[in-house]
């Protein structure tokens, strides 16, 4: 007869506190049933489920029932288990709908590809007896890059001169990590602000979450590059600037610079790309990179290489 949760805990971690003694799961297919107090057995190792992961966005908590915060009972280490959830959906980017898919095996493949590479979250995948591809992830100790930047309590000019010169080289290294994937025919798939973290202690930037995929035949890495452009805009601007934000910057009575439609992003038409208009000390070369993502651009980056070829020289100009 198989062990109960209580027996497993008494054997592996007698001091563990749990609200409830749940069930032991080997088949992880029905992830909605698996919750705090349950134990997932994978490759004969035991993961005590603490809770479902939650995504926080705009102050709203969105539970991700297929992602479980766990304690690996054999080592005591915290782990995240991502269970199989095949999901096809449309990502709405401005007026464009992008068909996307959540692919466990893509994430598993990338975990293998980036093993030991500190620029990416680490982990491994294993199949449960029912054939479900479970990804076992190390927990990153750190903070989202956008939050880290947001919490820097300085005006933009101070931030730009004192912090951005330290941030930009790390961002370039993060872009090189994406190029590493692209060079091997892989994509990150979901490059956005909350998927680049600053690791506590090392200060390194670490990419997380590789399970999204998209399929653009003529521009295979288009969505990743679009994501990098959006991140760069946030990093350089210390936030995004809508018409309303711009107006509040000039609430002191200074005259608002003439801003036209082409100064905003091509895809998100309420985010200013031409930051030099509101922050004149931004070098032309850096603004030029941002303008490639604007509505007035006629030339777009198709590879991370092209993006970096323009971005790297900006470092010297900022120094």
């Amino acid at each position, binding site marked *: 007869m198989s062990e109960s949760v209580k027996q497993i805990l008494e054997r592996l971690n007698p001091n563990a506190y749990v609200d409830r003694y749940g069930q032991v799961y080997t088949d992880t297919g029905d992830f909605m049933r698996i919750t705090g107090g349950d134990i997932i057995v994978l490759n004969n190792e035991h993961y005590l489920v603490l809770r479902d992961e939650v995504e926080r966005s705009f102050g709203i908590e969105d539970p991700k029932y297929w992602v479980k915060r766990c304690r690996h009972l054999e080592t005591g280490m915290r782990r995240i288990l991502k269970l199989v959830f095949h999901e096809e959906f449309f990502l709405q980017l*401005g007026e*464009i709908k992008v068909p996307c898919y959540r692919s466990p095996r893509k994430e598993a493949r990338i975990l293998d590809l980036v093993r030991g590479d500190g620029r990416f979250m680490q982990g491994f995948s294993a199949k449960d007896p029912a054939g479900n591809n479970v990804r076992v992830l190390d927990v990153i100790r750190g903070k989202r890059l956008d939050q880290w930047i947001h919490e820097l309590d300085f005006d933009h000019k101070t931030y730009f001169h004192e912090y951005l010169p330290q941030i930009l080289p790390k961002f370039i290294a993060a872009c090189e990590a994406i190029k590493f994937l692209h060079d091997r025919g892989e994509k990150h798939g979901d490059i956005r602000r909350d998927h680049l973290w600053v690791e506590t202690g090392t200060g390194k930037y670490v990419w997380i979450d590789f399970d999204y995929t998209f399929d653009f*035949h*003529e521009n295979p890495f288009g969505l990743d590059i679009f994501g990098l452009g959006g991140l760069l805009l946030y990093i350089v601007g210390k936030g995004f600037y809508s018409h309303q934000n711009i107006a509040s910057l000039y609430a002191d009575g200074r005259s608002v610079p003439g801003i036209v439609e082409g100064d905003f992003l*091509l*895809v998100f038409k309420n985010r200013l790309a031409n930051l030099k208009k509101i922050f004149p000390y931004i070098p032309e070369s850096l603004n030029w990179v941002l303008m490639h993502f604007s509505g007035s651009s006629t030339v777009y980056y198709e590879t991370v290489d092209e993006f970096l070829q323009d971005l790297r020289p900006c470092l010297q100009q900022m120094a």
Partner: protein
Amino acid sequence: MDTNKILVAIDGSENSRRAIDYVAAIIKDCQWFKVKLLYIERSPDRDFFADDDLWKKACVKQRKAMHDFLSKGKQLLLQRGIEEERVQTDYVESCNSPLGGNPDYCSRGTSIAQDILHVAKEEGFGTVAIGRRGVSKAEEFMFGSVSSKIIHSGSNCTIWVVQ
């Protein structure tokens, strides 16, 4: 490069059917022109499927649909009075297809436009004809555009973009 050879790149869409129509109208009374209908395979992405069986089924279905489209395209040209010996079809398989085959040249899936231009160059086509979807600027930025890339990258040939 042979000015009497026309390559029509098709993708199964109404736009590419219009391109075939247009080429047929241009050359129907010109006995010296030869036409090739070319399809560059875009295999469905493996990662979009829960397992390989579903993926292979989708690939088989798509391959059949595109072979049918090529046949219909050829029939369209024949119906317009173009002799059979002047019409060829070519199906360039994807290197990533699970359906086997060991073609001399396969598409790596990084740029259909470059694959089309590769065939045009290798086989000396003087004209490349292609339909145009008419995408927005934002869509072109995000998804890319085969016709735009052919216009920008094509050399040593004339390019007809059929709207």
